[in-house]
């Protein structure tokens, strides 16, 4: 769904930059400033992941007509539409300065180097890190007032996400005061079902499976790789039925998967060194394309990217599937947080930032984002059934004929109403969807029950885990064979000798 857009974005940005070049663009902005005194316009500096918001400009035929009568079409970028919406709703002007970051670490480095933003969208562990450092501004009481019509986040956020945000705490304070969920998902293995069985793909041990020697990629990212290797290391304990049925299973799982004691890191390093000899490579972004071109037959993937990759591969006639390992999975979130330095106690700014989150949490905007970027929004819609209708629109089976007979029930109640038995929230879908996009976008209750959030690590732990990563990635000088060293020394000696001899001949010969 996104690749068509990229072309259009490119053309659009080209046109825009041309426009700006001939001077047509800046005056438009200035005009706005002239109409109102400068003080009346609040500037909101937003920093988000790249390609992580609907930029609009959809084709007419892309109009999404949902069963509940709602029609959705992305015309302009959401952050631009927000400016108008804010004026209509609050009668005040806001100007959004929108920028992007590449990784959580990049964002953090930008912040420490003095870039200021008001509202940013980092991942779970970075939110925790920023929270622990006291860098975040809490959301106001009004933001959580469910009676207010405009508080879309409070009214529409999924009960499941709300619960996770309430339960996770840093220094005795729960996330929900500081962070509003945006997108979420799990991690797993994207694989080609023609070359690998679902059984084989559904375990973290797949990366060490000699049957797929040099055919699978892992992520070039220490946290993801650590998690998957740890899941493999602890395989037996994680799968033990006494452990799974423990009433305190969830908490214990979280603790196990966040174990960064030196002994565990050591064990992971040893295991990972072996895995590195079995996998194809580490990749950051090429995995999706490499699946389609057939270079690899499976890769470690975030659920949102998996949806995108499956969609894209389908267009090329390749059918991929997504499996979540049976040991456990990493539950991750990206959420909007306000920065204390950016907001600087300015109530207008804070109001605008909260309104921005609320605007993105409107069900139709959540659907636009999902359609555009392929990830799963934290918004379920509350009373509004737009998001669920969108799910049916995407994945529901035809309501007549063969498809209807074959349709399977896929309950997603845990996400929409907090009750997985809820019959109102069951998608009747084509059977193959159970291992594909629907399954990736809304993992089943059973998967969610074995999901663990990965917390942030303190300075020493970060240092240790990073050292482990360097040890894995670097050539150990002790592993260079002796003959190699001797050979190099011989060559160097021969070179030096020839130069010296040459000079001697030259001057005295």
């Amino acid at each position, binding site marked *: 769904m996104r690749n068509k857009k990229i072309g259009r974005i490119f053309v659009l940005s080209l046109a825009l930059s041309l426009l700006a070049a001939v001077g047509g663009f800046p005056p438009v902005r200035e005009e706005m400033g002239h109409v109102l005194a400068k003080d009346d316009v609040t500037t909101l500096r937003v920093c988000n992941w790249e390609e992580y918001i609907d930029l609009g400009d959809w084709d007419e035929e892309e109009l999404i007509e949902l069963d509940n009568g709602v029609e959705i079409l992305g015309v302009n970028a959401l952050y631009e539409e927000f400016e108008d919406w804010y004026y209509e709703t609050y009668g005040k002007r806001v100007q959004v300065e929108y920028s992007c970051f590449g*990784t959580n*670490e*990049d964002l*953090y*480095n930008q912040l*420490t180097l003095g870039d200021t933003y008001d509202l940013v969208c980092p991942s779970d562990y970075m939110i925790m890190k920023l929270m622990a450092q006291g860098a975040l501004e809490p959301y106001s009481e009004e933001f959580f007032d469910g009676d207010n019509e405009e508080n879309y986040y409070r009214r529409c956020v999924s009960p499941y996400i709300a619960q996770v945000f309430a339960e996770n705490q840093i220094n005795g304070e729960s996330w929900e005061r500081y962070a509003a969920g945006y997108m979420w998902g799990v991690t797993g293995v994207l694989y080609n079902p023609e070359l690998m069985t679902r059984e084989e793909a559904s375990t973290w041990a797949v990366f060490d499976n000699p049957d797929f020697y*040099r*055919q699978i990629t892992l992520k*070039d990212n220490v946290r993801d790789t650590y998690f998957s290797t740890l899941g493999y290391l602890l395989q037996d304990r994680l799968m033990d039925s006494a452990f799974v049925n423990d009433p305190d299973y969830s908490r214990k799982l979280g603790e196990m998967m966040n174990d960064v004691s030196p002994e565990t890191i050591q064990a992971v390093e040893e295991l990972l060194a072996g895995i*590195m000899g079995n*996998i*194809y*490579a*580490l*990749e*950051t972004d*090429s995995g999706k394309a490499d699946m389609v*071109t057939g*270079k690899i037959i499976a890769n470690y993937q975030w659920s949102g990217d998996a949806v995108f990759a499956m969609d894209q591969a389908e267009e090329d006639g390749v059918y991929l599937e997504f499996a979540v390992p049976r040991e456990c999975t990493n539950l991750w979130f990206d959420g909007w947080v306000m920065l204390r330095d950016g907001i600087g106690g300015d109530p207008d700014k804070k109001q605008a930032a909260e309104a921005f989150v609320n605007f993105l949490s409107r069900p139709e905007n959540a659907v636009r984002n999902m359609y555009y970027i392929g990830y799963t929004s934290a918004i379920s819609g509350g009373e509004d059934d737009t998001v669920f209708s969108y799910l049916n629109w995407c994945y529901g089976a035809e309501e007549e004929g063969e498809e209807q007979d074959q349709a399977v029930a896929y309950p997603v109640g845990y996400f929409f109403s907090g009750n997985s038995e809820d019959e109102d929230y069951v998608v009747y879908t084509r059977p193959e969807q159970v291992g594909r996009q629907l399954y990736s976008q809304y993992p089943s209750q059973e998967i969610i029950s074995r999901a663990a959030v990965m917390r942030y690590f303190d*300075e020493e732990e*970060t*240092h240790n885990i*990073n050292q482990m*990563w*360097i*040890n894995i*990635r*670097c*050539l*150990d*000088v*002790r*592993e*260079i064979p002796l003959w190699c060293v001797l050979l190099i020394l011989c060559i160097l000696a021969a070179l030096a000798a020839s130069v010296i001899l040459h000079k001697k001949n*030259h001057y005295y010969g």
Partner: protein
Amino acid sequence: MGVFRFSRKQLCIPYAVFLLCFVAAPLLVIIYYAFTNGEGNFTLDNLTGFFTSPYTIGTLAYSFAIAAVTTCVCLLLAYPIAYILARSQWKRKSVIVVMFVLPMWINFTLRITALKEILTVIEGNLAFHPFLNTVVGMTYDFLPFMILPMYTTLLKLDKSLLEAAADLGAGPFQVFGKVTLPLSVPGIISGVVMVFLPSMTNYVVLDMLYNSTYIMGSLIGSFFSAYDWHNGSMIALILLLIILVFTLVTDRYTEEDAGSRGGALL
């Protein structure tokens, strides 16, 4: 009325400002970080850490190996081409030179992406030959930098010297070994410098060709992304020193060549 007059010194001001902002100032920051620890105190730990860790030394060795092999391959490929081109009487030879330079006009990540597909067709599975792929990628990337300086040096070579050598009885191989090759050393050295040093740090090629082993460039990046500015800066500094030493040595060599050897030949 205002006629602006610039002295030569004043004309240097823009460049001096540029140098100050983008070379000198960042260098000072690197030096500061390299010799301090997290608390901002002076320390030599980063320096000793580099030379005592088998992994950083191993990375240095690996970078050297990639750079050395790449340079040798480039040299072996480029010298005959530069030689043939410079010696040929064909009027349109500038067209061929342009053809070698042409790839440089296309962004190199695009070229490497294409190379990746070509290599996959040839090798089947890229994961089996990470070192070879890296060398091929680097060679592909840096070959023009090797050809051009050698071509210019060979082009400027005084033909009468070759004729004189031939007249005095040297065979074609002797002419090449005793006259052409020594006189083209400055070209070879500037080519080597232009290939060897960048290929020690050009980690994008490794990333794109699925070589997961770190070289110096990626090692610095990994420290920076773990917020460890101190160790990262120290490695950058060491790399700068290596480059400095390398340049000093080769500079001396080229000067000697241009002066004494050329003179001695005459």
